């Protein structure tokens, strides 16, 4: 059932990739002093562009997936590599992480866990229908859009600040 939404997801993926390219351009033009934000936007944009290209060119033949068993696992690897690479670049160039980049890491972790659960449901258990499939689709797309918006709006609040503001208001 989950693969029925594939075409719809491909269109959303293209939109999200475009949004990431826009976010990178915005960061490059508007926030020239934010080194960490530039690194984060660059890594996330290239990750989404590359995974989109890989998905469209390498993983599908005549509209069908080559290795559907590993479909969700590879998304986890992409997300994980993005986080590790971004962290390593920050570490080697001695740049302190921007709050938006840390939030992007955490949102990627949510994506990874939902991918893992869907892999368990769809591939390991072969469950044809489950309420989590629609939750997964919306979670993955929403987190990607939120990450791009975090970069575009130079979001500087940490999770702690958000809770404090919520408690004070």
């Amino acid at each position, binding site marked *: 059932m989950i693969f029925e939404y594939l075409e719809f997801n491909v269109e959303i993926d293209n939109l999200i990739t475009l949004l990431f390219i826009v976010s990178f351009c915005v960061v490059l033009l508007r926030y020239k002093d934010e080194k960490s934000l530039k690194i984060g936007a660059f890594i996330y944009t290239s990750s989404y562009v590359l995974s989109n290209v890989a998905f469209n060119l390498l993983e599908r033949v005549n509209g069908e997936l080559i290795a559907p*068993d*590993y479909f969700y*696992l590879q998304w*986890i*690897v992409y*997300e*994980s*590599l993005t*986080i*590790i690479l971004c*962290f390593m670049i920050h570490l080697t160039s*001695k740049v*302190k*992480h921007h709050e938006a980049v*840390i939030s992007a*890491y*955490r949102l*990627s*972790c949510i994506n*990874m*866990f939902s991918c*893992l659960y869907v892999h368990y449901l769809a591939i390991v258990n072969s469950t044809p229908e489950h309420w989590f499939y629609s939750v997964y689709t919306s979670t993955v797309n929403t987190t990607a859009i939120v990450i791009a918006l975090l970069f575009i709006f130079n979001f500087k609040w940490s999770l702690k600040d958000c809770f404090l503001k919520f408690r004070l208001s």
Partner: protein
Amino acid sequence: MLFEVPFILICIFVSVFLSFLVRKIEEDKEIPLPELAEKLLLELDEVNQLEATTRVLAKKQWKDKYEVYLERKKMDLSKDKSKINKIRAVK
């Protein structure tokens, strides 16, 4: 799947570890500037007592560390300047 799933679990563990402990890792990495200056002075004293052959390389490494210290100091000064500007703006 015997190999892939454990690999994925390790990937998830590393990513979660990094995303939740980034700030702590960064704080541990950054020694306060006065402490760092003291440490550098002690190191320089040790380097000066080395033999001529090993001293050249040791001094080069020390200079790299000193440059990092200077960069951090510059960043600290620019932060202070931006704070002063903000106070002026409030006035």
